[in-house]
């Protein structure tokens, strides 16, 4: 199977690559539209700042390439946020694959620390990336912005308020958490994506 990881100015690309290799898949890391289009699966990872990253994608005309992908695509963390319509982080116009807004966490209590960092549970999981056995399992998050629960929400996590731990629409899948850093649960989720 050909898996492509979108190469752009974001961190964490190699962690995803390592995780796939542990599952026996050797991904290609590329920004080449041709390689991305012909891959069986595409992963859009990301750690970084929304506005800077969107500027980079637009400048390199990668925004249109990502939106037009027809095979299963998995956005991770910032990748998921950039697949939404707009982000409060740098007031960024994003890809608009999911008609949803990315908002900044506002702490309610002193204990509500931002970023939301560490292991938290996923609930109300839906088919696609998830199976019923993954309900209430812990996955690893690091983020300061979140996508509210909406019609595309495929898993929910509660921190400060319930938010989208995962989104799904057509061939586009996304996780706010890092499956590549989520131990054996993350491996199951990545395997499920590779099976789509």
């Amino acid at each position, binding site marked *: 199977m050909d898996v492509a990881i979108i190469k752009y100015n974001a961190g964490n690309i190699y*962690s995803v690559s390592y995780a796939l290799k542990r599952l026996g898949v050797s991904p290609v890391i590329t920004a080449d539209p041709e390689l991305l289009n012909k891959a069986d699966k595409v992963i859009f990872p990301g750690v970084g*700042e929304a506005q800077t990253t969107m500027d980079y994608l637009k400048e390199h005309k990668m925004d249109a390439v990502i939106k037009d992908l027809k095979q299963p695509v998995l956005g991770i963390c910032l990748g998921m946020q950039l697949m939404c319509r707009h982000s409060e982080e740098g007031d960024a116009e994003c890809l608009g694959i999911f008609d949803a807004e990315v908002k900044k966490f506002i702490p309610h209590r002193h204990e509500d620390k*931002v970023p939301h960092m560490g*292991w938290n549970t996923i609930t109300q999981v839906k088919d696609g990336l998830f199976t019923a056995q993954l309900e209430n399992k812990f996955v*690893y998050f690091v983020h300061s912005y979140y996508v509210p629960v909406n019609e595309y929400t495929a898993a929910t996590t509660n921190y400060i308020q319930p938010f989208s731990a995962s989104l799904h629409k057509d061939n586009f899948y996304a996780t706010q958490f*890092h499956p*590549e850093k989520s131990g054996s649960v993350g491996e199951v989720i990545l395997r499920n994506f590779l099976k789509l």
Partner: protein
Amino acid sequence: MLAKRIVPCLDIKDGKTVKGINFVNFRDAGDPVELGAQYSREGADELVYLDITASHEGRKTFTELVKKVAANISIPFTVGGGINELKDVDRLLSAGADKVSVNSAALRNPSLIEEIAKNFGSQVCVVAIDANYEDGDWICYLNGGRIPTEKHLFQWAAEAENLGAGEILFTSMTHDGVKDGYANDALSTLADNLHIPVIASGGAGKMEHFRDTFARGKADAALAASVFHFGEIGIADLKLYLNKEGINVRI
């Protein structure tokens, strides 16, 4: 609910795991990648790898080790030791580390914290503080606890947060190696003062100590080394115990 984290710490010298008792004598405790993988399987939530070799050669060995850890282990890990400038951070993050911890270099040059946060994000920047309780005050130390500074724990932790630290890793030199529990009073004050997570370090000897540092010390994570390396406490058993004691942990 966000889980409290259990964090085994591996001190690395010349590519091998060691553990200091009160920062001096060392005992050998195994292969770092194997040990990390085993902790991950047992349920560790994160790992910390600290490079305690200062030589240039040792640093290259450590970077190679970081690559191996990233390739083999599927939970987040922090690396520290010998990080003096931004290019050290870049080298270690590029090798696959999720976070870096800075200690002496940040005390000498606090703007390093700001630079790391600006270039890589606060979430990668752990500020490690070694402090000793002396005459009613917590004094911060440089160079693995060898040189006292003018800085006080609470003041320095708040300053680090303002500069962009993503987490504070507080090691009580007073409690480290003594195995009589964490510095829960100081930890609790840190938790009340700060808006970023605090990792408790120094003093773990029994399972109760972990419970107490989460419940009384209000720590977000608890770090320990020798109790895990020498098999005195199993991580899986510890998590079951904490769960039974009402602490939210990932099982």
